């Protein structure tokens, strides 16, 4: 997983219009660009679906079907029509959530995705919470001590987070904490013993077990979550700490900070109330972006931890040449990604008074 750096943080001057309709048109522009991006995503997946050297008809009827059946299915799938018409049909199906049937599980792909998504969501959410709780104070601390040893240490911790292969870190974590020290449970979301004890309501085991009052299950789920969430959280921490530091440095060099200090305010108040208060808005967008990256980054982590989420579903379908599932999963993760991007842009525009 890679965390893209600054190129997508919105610039401070974006969307400066006093009239309300100017603001509305900015929002409309944003929504239009999101729609374009979504169309692009479906177009790319459509092309991928066409590039694969598997005959989609044979995938349905099998290679022993008669010529007549073959032709009938070919017509049913709309493969005789021009490409743009095929794309139109494909788009309609995608919007309805019809991704076809998974060859592997022989259920509708959407059904599978709904089944597997909560595990990914749980993992990414806990990881983001960890990243925010640790990353923001680290970034602030580094900025306050700019150029000193603390700053360098935090910078290196961040760069290490950018440089370590997530799947490898997961394996080493399992080796050390599970195999050698026996402090944490192994792969999976729950021990076998606890599997199926809690009726899935939200699909998030932590939430479900609390709702059911099954504290033992909660404990077990939590202990399973610790390692993958910490490892994913580390990546989000690296990104958040780095961005927090740079936002804080920008604020701390402003004159109102000097004024506040001259007035005799305590250093803590100057840093947290004055400077940090002003970094909140860009930070929200950073957190939203890092959340999007984690949803994607969970592909490799889930593979290592046998975590039954969307990422593992995609990779497993991939190995079984189950293209419907791969493309469906790609569109869903891609849409979440695009949606979170939009959300971070909108938040920025709505929350920051200067952007209005």
């Amino acid at each position, binding site marked *: 997983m890679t965390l893209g750096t600054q190129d997508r943080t919105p610039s401070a001057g974006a969307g400066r219009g006093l009239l309300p309709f100017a603001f509305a048109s900015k929002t409309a522009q944003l929504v239009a660009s999101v729609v*374009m991006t979504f169309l692009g995503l479906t177009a790319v997946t459509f092309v991928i679906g066409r590039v694969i050297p598997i005959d989609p008809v044979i995938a349905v009827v099998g290679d022993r079907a008669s010529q007549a059946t073959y032709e009938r299915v070919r017509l049913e799938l709309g493969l005789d029509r021009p490409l743009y018409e095929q794309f139109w049909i494909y788009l309609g199906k995608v919007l309805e959530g019809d991704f076809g049937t998974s060859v592997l599980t022989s259920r509708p792909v959407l059904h599978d995705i709904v089944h597997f998504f909560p595990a990914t969501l749980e993992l990414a959410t806990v990881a983001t919470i960890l990243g925010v709780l640790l990353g923001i104070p680290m970034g602030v601390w580094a900025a306050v001590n700019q150029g000193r040893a603390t700053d360098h240490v935090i910078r290196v911790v961040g760069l290490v987070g950018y440089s370590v292969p997530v799947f490898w870190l997961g394996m080493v974590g399992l080796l050390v904490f599970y195999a050698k020290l026996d402090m944490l449970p192994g792969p999976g979301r729950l021990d076998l013993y606890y599997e199926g004890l809690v009726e899935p309501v939200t699909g998030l085991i932590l939430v479900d077990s609390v709702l059911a009052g099954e504290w033992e299950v909660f404990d077990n789920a939590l202990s399973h979550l610790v390692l993958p969430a910490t490892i994913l959280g580390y990546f989000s921490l690296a990104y958040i700490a780095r961005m927090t530091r740079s936002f804080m440095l920008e604020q701390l060099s402003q004159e109102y900070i000097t004024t506040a200090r001259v007035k005799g305010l305590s250093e803590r108040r100057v840093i947290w109330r004055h400077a940090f208060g002003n970094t909140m808005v860009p930070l929200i967008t950073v957190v939203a972006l890092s959340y999007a990256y984690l949803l994607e980054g969970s592909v490799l982590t889930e593979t290592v931890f046998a975590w039954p989420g969307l990422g593992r579903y995609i990779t497993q379908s991939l190995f079984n040449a189950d293209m419907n599932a791969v493309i469906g999963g790609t569109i869903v993760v891609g849409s979440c990604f695009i949606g979170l991007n939009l959300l971070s842009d909108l938040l920025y525009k709505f929350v920051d008074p200067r952007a209005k």
Partner: protein
Amino acid sequence: MSLFTRSATIVNPQGLRAWLLSDAPGSAFQARCGRWYLMWLALKRNPLACIGLFIVVGLLLMAIFAPWLTTTNGIEQVLLDRLLPPSAAHWFGTDELGRDIYDRIVWGARITLYIVGLVGVIVVPVGLVVGTVAGYLGGAIDAVLMRITDIFLAFPRLILALAFVSALGPGIENAVLAIALTTWSPYARIARAETITIRDSEYIMAARLQGASRLRILYGHVVPLCLSSVIIRLTLDMAGIILTAAGLGFLGLGAQPPLPEWGAMISTGRQFLLDQWWVATVPGLAIFAVSLGFNLLGDGLRDVLDPKSRDS
């Protein structure tokens, strides 16, 4: 002409350093060398960047001198020596087919550089062309090109690369193509931004007045000025490219066995993780070290070449 003669008198014979630091370089070559030297001086003051440079140069040397640094070709199997722990004979132990892991790491440096280099060779020209054309011509062309760029910018990289490779079939070249497809867009953005700032500057006007064609202005005058920021970005991206390639290799979608690709090595080592830890951990350390090297170097380069973002 006057500038030329003056510089000839100022360049005093105090050796290479003076020649490099001359205020009035006598030739484009001297100016270029001088700039590189200044960059090196600035980089030298940054210890972290030096470590990064050291690692990257080390990787290059490892790849170049692989035949002299190893005793085997990293592919031949010695089934009698399966899964030996690290020792004097096998520094990092051997894998499940008796191949020396140290040798495989050294040969793997070539594959890593091959992937990274190929991605760079595809991504930089594509980004430069799209960005400079969009920025210089403006108008509708700009709008269309940037819309496309934005679409690619908003894609989830790894997932899309996964889907691409699964469609095209596993292999190094396809992995490179997939990574390139999801990496080029920020370069177009950067090149466009740079182009817009220099588009209306006087020397471009001068070139235009002299009758230079658009193509000539773009490639003779605009592109060279975009290069430095594009190269910084590429250095910073290298780690990401290496990690994505390793991730694809780990999933079995990148380089295929028996090639000693580091990600794929981790993947096979996973089966022996509990008892023969070295099979999987050593290649991971190699990936980590190399991407850290690129990150440190890129960070340092950005500080040197782009003083605006020195604080970030």
